[in-house]
């Protein structure tokens, strides 16, 4: 589809808006979890959302975004509790416990999903689309719901910006001046859950964590200022979402969610290669320049010695 037609076509417009909103919130919230070294926890919450959403559906019998948020939040909270227990009561390290919780909760979610599908009228639920997303069938109502959730997430990100920064950088100091890292953590995790539920329809549970990680890591490579990093991550996420949605208009049966993740990954790889901070290219250039400078100095020193 030619670029000029993209905004006038209602379905394409909805898909693009939905994916951009998803990318934006994912990038922003992902930045907060990334600098606190909690990206894996974000991933756990994304995967734990599946059983939560299934249980919410089973309880209510219909698809409701707000019920899903509640379900996903409860499941995420349960997952984090389990991880805490595992770390405290056994010799498991944090990342092992997180990986274990992720797998177990996700597996439970798949079992619930199958159970729902086998029940009467099960397929009408369309919940299987929650695994990998189905962005193409978004409607105006879906976009509105996503916009609301994204607005909440972004507002919280702005409002609590300095608190997130402080507790991420020096949690002990933060506590000493009265900002409890535990409460900030809980707030951030809640925002992750809301972001995941918002994005679950577009990219699905499995791919959601890519949006929480890739744009943030890519943005980190371009700036040392946290505020700029967050904004840049949001932009990267939105652009990836847009690219995925647009790519889906070119041929039949293209999975929009996966394309968006590919776009985000491409941005990530480009940042790794070409950014001044992480760029492999930049580093190679720097090393080359340094070597030449050192050689020149040696030469000068040797000449100096030879002088009578």
């Amino acid at each position, binding site marked *: 589809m030619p670029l000029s037609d993209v905004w006038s076509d209602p379905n394409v417009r909805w898909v693009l808006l939905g994916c951009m909103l998803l990318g934006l919130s994912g990038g922003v919230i992902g930045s907060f979890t990334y600098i606190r070294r909690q990206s894996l926890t974000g991933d756990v919450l994304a995967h734990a959302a599946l059983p939560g959403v299934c249980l919410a559906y089973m309880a209510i019998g219909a698809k409701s975004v707000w019920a899903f948020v509640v379900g996903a939040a409860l499941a995420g909270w349960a997952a984090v509790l389990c991880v805490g227990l595992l770390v405290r009561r056994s010799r498991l390290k944090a990342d092992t416990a997180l990986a274990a919780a992720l797998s177990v909760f996700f597996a439970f979610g798949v079992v619930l999903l199958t159970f729902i599908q086998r029940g009467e009228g099960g397929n009408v639920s369309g919940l299987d689309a929650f695994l990998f997303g189905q962005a193409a069938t978004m409607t105006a109502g879906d976009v509105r719901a996503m916009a609301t959730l994204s607005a909440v997430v972004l507002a919280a990100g702005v409002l609590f910006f300095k608190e997130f920064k402080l507790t991420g950088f020096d949690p002990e*100091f933060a506590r*000493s001046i*009265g*900002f409890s890292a535990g409460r900030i953590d809980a707030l951030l995790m809640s925002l992750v859950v809301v972001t995941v539920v918002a994005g679950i329809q577009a990219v699905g549970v499995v791919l959601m964590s890519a949006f929480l990680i890739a744009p943030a890591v890519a943005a980190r490579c371009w700036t040392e200022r*946290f505020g700029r990093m967050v904004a840049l991550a949001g932009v990267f996420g939105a652009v990836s979402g847009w690219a995925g949605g647009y790519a889906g208009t070119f041929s039949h049966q293209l999975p929009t969610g996966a394309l968006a993740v590919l776009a985000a990954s491409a941005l990530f790889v480009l940042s790794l290669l070409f950014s001044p901070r992480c760029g492999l290219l930049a580093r190679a250039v720097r090393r080359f320049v340094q070597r030449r400078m050192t050689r020149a100095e040696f030469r000068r020193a040797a000449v100096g010695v030879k002088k009578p």
Partner: protein
Amino acid sequence: MTTTESGTVAPGDVAAETEPEASPLVVRDLTAAYRGEPVLRCVNLALPEGRLIGLIGPNGAGKSTLLKAVLGLVPVLSGEVLVFGMPYRKRRRLVGYVPQRESVDWDFPTDALDVVVMGLYGRLGWFRRPGKKEREIAMECLEKVGMAAYADRQIGQLSGGQQQRVFLARALAQDARLYLMDEPFAGVDAATEKAIVGLLGELKSRGKTVVVVHHDLSTVRDYFDWVVLLNREVVAAGPTDEVFRPELLQRTYGGRLAVFRENGAPTRAEG
């Protein structure tokens, strides 16, 4: 009538207004744990105001734990801590903290000025964003530690000594009456050491109380006018001349101690 540091009267401080000046730090029968292990046993202290106080003891004596217990960073198993007569919670504005450098994520995307501004967050409270005024105050604090030129340098790119000075600047920004510093002299270069010493002097001249966890015995007499000898419990506390003596040091460091003297004064201890 006395007013608090920030110039306004806070509700929690009313009691202090009417009482005679409370000691900056009173510790009664404190037992505290670090990572599940009880480290401090029945610690009792009452510190005088306006002094530079050295907190001395061997490794594992609980010096850092004592500071953290005051700040509520480790659980207090029994006993109580009073800062200017009230629990720490109510006196946050009056206490400045310089933690050990290891507890921080140095890869964090923030610059020196930003770190100092964080010292003002306590004053701003939740939601309010730091503005021009806060940045100006932070800049002044950076100047006081000689780091003004590095204001926009990412903190991971600073040397150990420079990082320490940024931390000090942050504590200065807190504009407290009591400062708690955890090994500020550890691993710093000579220039930084000089800067810190100068800063301590200035703080004292403004009537601030500073408690410093310190490991280098040879400099204790030069830096501190009050000393607390700690080894899980308080061995002795008092003015440096009275307390910083070989017998008491031996007791603190557990007997296996070689004390090197220079002109009759202990300069180094190895245990």
